[in-house]
C-alpha cells in the first residue's frame, strides 16, 4: 500500500471564541465524526458539542462500593472465621475497627478503576500511532492554537464541502491528515531477533537476581533470620567464667520447679503403702492417661497392657498388666514402677510429670477393669 489513506481535514484557529464558533457551526451542519483539539479544556465546549455527560462517575460508584464490601467480607472472614483470636476483649467481628480500612479500600479501588477505565477503556490509550499524532497540527494544538478535525468516515464527508466549511468558519492552515503507511503496514513479529534477545536478557537477569537473593543474600548478615546472636549456646565456652564453661550448674540444693525428689526410691512396698492417688477418674484425667500411655507405655506394654510389644524381638516382652499381681497392687505401687522403673524398665520420671503418671495409673486401672469386666459393669 503506497497510496496514502485520508483520515481527516483539519483547520486551525487562533482564539477560543473562534473555535467555539466553529464547533457550533459543525454541529449545525450535522457533522458527527469531528473533534476539537485545544491545549486545555475550554469552558462551555461540552455543551456546544452536545456531548453526553461522562459516565465515569458510575464506575467510581460501583467499584468503590464493591471495594468496601470486599474489604468488609475479607476482614470478617479473616478475623472471625479463618483466624479467630480475641484481641483486647473485643468481639471477633468488630465492625467499628474495620471502618478505616473499608474507607481506604473504597478510595483506592475507585480511584484506580476510574483512571484505568478512562485511559484504557474510554480513550483506548495508549495510542501513539493515531494519525493525528506526530503532525504539525498536533504541535500547534498542543501549544497555543485551537484546532478542529473532521474525519473522512463521517457520513456527510465530501472533500470539497468540508474544505468549504472550514473556510466558511475562517479556519487557517486547512490541511488533510493521512494515516501513516508505516503504522498501517506494521505487523508484530514475535520471533524478531531483538525481541528474543530481550526475552533472554530479561530471563537471565530475573533468574540471577532471584538466585542471588534466595541463596546468597538471605545468608549474609544482617539478613540471617536471627541465626547469629551474641548469646552463649549450650556447651559453648565462655571467657566470663573461670572454669571456661558457658553452661552453669544450678546452685547446690536448688530444685527445679515441679521436681520434688522422690521419697521412696528403691522402696516399692513402702511406696504402695504410703502414696495416695490424688486424681479422680474423670474424663479429662483418663484422656490424658490414654494419651500418655499410648505414647510412652504402649511401645512395650501394648495398647491394652497385654505385654504384646510392638518392639518384639528387640526387647524382652514385659509381663501383662492384667495379672492378678498387678491388679491387686495399690495405685502407689504402680506409680512407683513408672517413677523408679523395675527390672529392665527404666524410670519414666523425665518423660511424665507427677500428674501425668497418676493419670496413667488411672488409665491402667480402666484397662484392667475392661479386661476383667463383671456382669454388673454392663449395666
Amino acid at each position, binding site marked *: 500500500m503506497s497510496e496514502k489513506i485520508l483520515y481527516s481535514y483539519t483547520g486551525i484557529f487562533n482564539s477560543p471564541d473562534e473555535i467555539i464558533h466553529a464547533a457550533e457551526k459543525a454541529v449545525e451542519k450535522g457533522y458527527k465524526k469531528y473533534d476539537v483539539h485545544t491545549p486545555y479544556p475550554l469552558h462551555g465546549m461540552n455543551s456546544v458539542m452536545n456531548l453526553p455527560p*461522562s459516565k465515569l462517575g458510575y464506575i467510581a460508584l460501583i467499584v468503590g462500593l464493591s471495594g468496601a464490601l470486599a474489604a468488609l467480607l475479607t476482614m470478617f472472614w479473616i478475623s472471625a472465621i479463618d483466624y479467630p483470636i480475641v484481641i483486647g476483649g473485643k468481639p471477633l467481628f468488630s465492625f467499628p475497627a474495620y471502618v*478505616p480500612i473499608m474507607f*481506604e*479500600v473504597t478510595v483506592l479501588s475507585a480511584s484506580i478503576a476510574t483512571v484505568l477505565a478512562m485511559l484504557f477503556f474510554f480513550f483506548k490509550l495508549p495510542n501513539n*500511532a493515531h494519525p493525528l499524532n506526530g503532525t504539525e497540527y498536533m504541535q500547534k494544538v498542543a501549544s497555543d492554537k485551537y484546532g478542529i478535525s473532521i474525519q473522512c468516515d463521517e457520513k456527510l464527508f465530501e472533500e470539497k464541502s468540508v474544505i468549504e466549511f472550514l473556510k466558511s468558519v475562517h479556519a487557517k492552515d486547512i490541511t488533510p491528515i493521512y494515516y501513516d503507511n508505516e503504522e498501517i503496514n506494521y505487523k508484530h513479529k514475535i520471533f524478531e531477533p531483538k525481541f528474543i534477545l530481550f526475552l533472554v536478557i530479561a530471563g537471565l537477569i530475573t533468574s540471577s537476581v532471584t538466585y542471588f537473593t534466595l541463596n546468597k543474600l538471605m545468608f549474609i548478615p544482617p539478613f540471617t533470620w536471627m541465626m547469629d546472636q551474641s548469646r552463649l549456646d549450650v556447651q559453648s565456652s565462655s571467657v566470663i567464667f573461670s572454669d571456661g564453661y558457658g553452661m552453669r550448674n544450678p546452685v547446690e540444693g536448688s530444685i527445679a520447679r515441679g521436681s520434688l525428689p522422690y521419697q521412696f526410691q528403691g522402696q516399692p512396698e513402702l511406696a504402695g503403702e504410703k502414696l495416695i492417688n490424688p486424681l479422680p477418674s474423670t474424663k479429662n484425667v483418663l484422656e490424658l492417661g490414654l494419651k500418655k500411655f499410648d505414647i510412652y507405655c504402649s511401645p512395650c506394654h501394648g495398647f491394652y497392657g497385654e505385654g504384646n510389644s510392638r518392639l518384639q524381638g528387640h526387647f524382652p516382652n514385659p509381663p501383662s498388666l492384667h495379672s492378678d499381681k498387678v491388679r491387686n497392687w495399690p495405685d502407689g505401687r504402680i506409680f512407683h514402677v513408672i517413677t523408679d522403673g523395675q527390672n529392665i524398665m527404666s524410670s519414666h520420671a523425665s518423660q511424665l510429670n507427677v500428674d501425668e503418671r497418676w493419670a496413667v495409673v488411672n488409665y491402667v486401672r480402666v484397662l484392667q477393669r475392661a479386661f476383667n469386666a463383671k456382669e454388673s459393669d454392663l449395666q
Partner: protein
Amino acid sequence: MSFVDYTKEIQVVEGKQPLRTIDDIISKPLETKPDKKFYIAISVTLTMLMFGVIGLGLTFWYGIGMWGNNNPVGWAYDIVNFVFWVGIGHAGTLISAILYLFRQKWRTGIARFAEGMTIFAVMTAGLFPLIHVGRPWLDGYLFPYPNQHSLWVNFTSPLLWDVFAVSTYLTVSLIFWYVGLIPDFASLRERTANKFKKITYSIFSLGWRFSNRHWQHYEMVYLILAGFATPLVLSVHTIVSFDFAVSILPGWHTTIFPPYFVAGAVFSGFAMVQNVLIFVRRIFNYEHIITLNTLEKMNKIMLVTGSMVGYAYAMEFFIAWYSGVQAEQFTFFNRALGPYAWAYWIMVTCNVVSPQLFWFKKIRRSIPIMFVVAVFVNVGMWFERFVIVVTSLSRDYLPSSWAYYTPTLVDAMILIGSFGFFFTWILLFTKALPVVSIAEVKAVVDGAQPSHKDH
C-alpha cells in the same frame, strides 16, 4: 487612602502571557543542562542522604539498639519523623484536591509542585515505620496476604490502619499526579526534537491528543479524584493520630487528636511548600506564575491552621483540668514545666506565636520574613510531635519507670538523611518533570477562556 476592589478576582497569572511563552518558561528547566547551582544543591542533599544511609546501615547491622529508644520511651525519633513527614505531605493534597473542589484558581500555579512534594514526603515518611520494625526486609508481613504460616494481620490495630492509609495515600497521590501530567507529557512530546526524550514522553503521554471528547472525561476524573482525595487526606492524618489516641496513655488518649493532627499537618505542609516554592519561583523565573498573591494566600492558610493548632494546645490543657483525671493533669503540667519544658516552649513559640505575625499584610507579602516564619513553623511542628510522643512516654503512670530520653548520633543521622532523601527527590523532580502544570496554567491565563458573548 488607596481603594481596593475586592469584587474583582485577582489575576492568577500576572500579565497577559502568550500561551507559547508559558510552554517555554515551564519546560525550560527540562531542556537546558543543569547549571552549577543545581550541582551544588544536589551535592548538599546527597551528602545529607549519605548520613542517613550510614545511620541506616548501622541500624540494620547492629539493630535498633543503636537508637536512643529504650524503656519507657519505646517510640521516639522514628515515629516523630514519620508523623512529621506524613504531615508535610498533606499540603499537596489539600492544594490539589480541596482547593480544586472550592474552585480556587490560584492553586493552579503551585498544585503540581505541591503534589510532587506530597509523594516525596509520604515516601520519606514511609521509611520510618519500615525501618522501625528492625528487619525491614520482612516488611511484607505488614500486609494481609495468604501465607504459609497461616497468619493474618490484626485488623483492629491502628498500626494496621496506618499501613492501609499511608499506602492508599501514596497510590492515590501518584495517580492524581500522573493524570495531571499526561497532557503535559503530550505538550513536551510535541516540543522536543531529541529522539530519546520524544520516545520517553510518548510512552508517558500514552498518545494523548488534546481532544475535547477526552477533556470532558478527563475533567470528570479530575473531579472524582479530587472528591476522593479530600476525605482521604483527612482520613490519613486522622488514622495516624489514632496510633496515639486509641492507646490509654495520658497525653495520647484524647479525642481532639484527629482534627488537631489534620490542622497541624496542613500547617506544616504549607510551610514546607512555601519554603521550597520561594526558591523555585526565583531560580526558574516563575514569579508571574507563582505570584506573591499566591504566597500571601498560603500565609493566610498558615495563619488559620496555626491558630487552630494553638487552640488545640489550649484545649488539651483545659480538658486535662476539666476532666479531673489526675494522671492527665500531671501529664500536661509535666509537658509545660517538666524536664521537656524546653521542647514544649520551642513548640509554642514556633507554632502559636510566630504565625500570628501573618496578621500584618506587610509581613504576609515580605518574602524574607515569611520564609523565616515558615522555617520556624516546620521546626515547631517537628517539636510538636516530639513533645507528644516523648513527654507522654517518658513519664507515664508508674513513677519508678520514668526515664529521660536522649537521642543518639544515629537518630540524628537518620533525621538528616530523611531531609536529604526528600530534597534529592525534589531537585530531581525540578529537572525531570514540569513543576508547574502547563495545561492548567494556560487555562487560567487572561483571555484563555471563551468570552461567551453570544450566549
